[in-house]
């Protein structure tokens, strides 16, 4: 690189230049700089993180919705099962009633026959 071919300045001039440069020290910020900077940081939050983010809301509603659907499905399943059982019981009862009435009818007829 170019730096390796440049002659090294003598130490005396090096110190003298540094001394001269030191005559113009770094300026300092005023006493209000920190307060103004903090205020500017606070007011610079167009992308400030809101208390509740849209992602958080969406996730909450999605979880609640899925849970509700599962509950509803379970509830419907239970209703359907109960309804099916009720119908099955009704059929069974009706069949039993028909069997009994048939038995009664047959026994009536046989009495009549035997009476002849």
């Amino acid at each position, binding site marked *: 690189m170019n730096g390796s071919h440049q002659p090294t300045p003598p130490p005396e001039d090096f110190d003298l*230049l540094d001394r001269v440069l030191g005559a113009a*020290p770094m300026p300092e910020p005023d006493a209000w700089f920190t307060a103004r900077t903090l205020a500017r940081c606070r007011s610079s939050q167009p992308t400030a993180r809101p208390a509740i983010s849209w992602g958080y809301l969406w996730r909450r509603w999605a979880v609640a919705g899925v849970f509700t659907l599962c509950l509803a499905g379970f509830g419907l399943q239970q209703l359907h099962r109960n309804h099916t059982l009720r119908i099955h019981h009704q059929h069974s009862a009706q069949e039993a009633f028909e069997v009994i009435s048939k038995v009664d009818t047959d026994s009536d007829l046989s009495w009549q026959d035997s009476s002849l």
Partner: protein
Amino acid sequence: MKEPLAPFDSDAHDKRLMLRIADEDEDALRELVEKHQGTVYGTIAKMLGDPIEAQDLAQRVFVRIYRAAPTYRATAQFKTWMFTIVRNLVFNEHRRRSRATLVPLHPPDGESAGASTGPLPALDLPDTAHKSPSEQLLQDEMMRAVNAAILELPEQQRLAIILRRYDEFSYEEIAEVLKTSVSATKSLLFRARETLRGVLSDYMENQR
């Protein structure tokens, strides 16, 4: 026997402050600003030669740091990362000024107190309580000459010499900020010094 205290790791402390700032800790932000406002503002003021603009740019540096806190990854030294932001803002401002024709709102008043220091306000003068009037005059003149000479340097050389001489950055740190090699950094510094030596030769003679 007490164990010696571990040396204070400024970089690790800055990174811890950044983590707290990401958690909206305003005390951490205040501490970071107070710690670095001197070097940030001073460097920008030296680069631009305009204390008003330097205040604005220095604040913008800290605003950028604040907004970057949630995604900040400590892959490099905090100081060099911060001064990369300084470099970007200062160089952008420099280019904006070179395109615009700037007219000062208040023409320089050579008779008003404190304005004799040139582009920098009087509050930046070193302590002159023990100086005679002639020494004070020489001091003022030298300060104006040094600031003017620095402002005449190309922006890369200017930033390099400010970071080296006033912020005491190492060659490696300057190279990281300028996004160049260490040898290129040394070359920049050498050329800057040669230029300054030529411009300020009279004052160097007085210092012998």
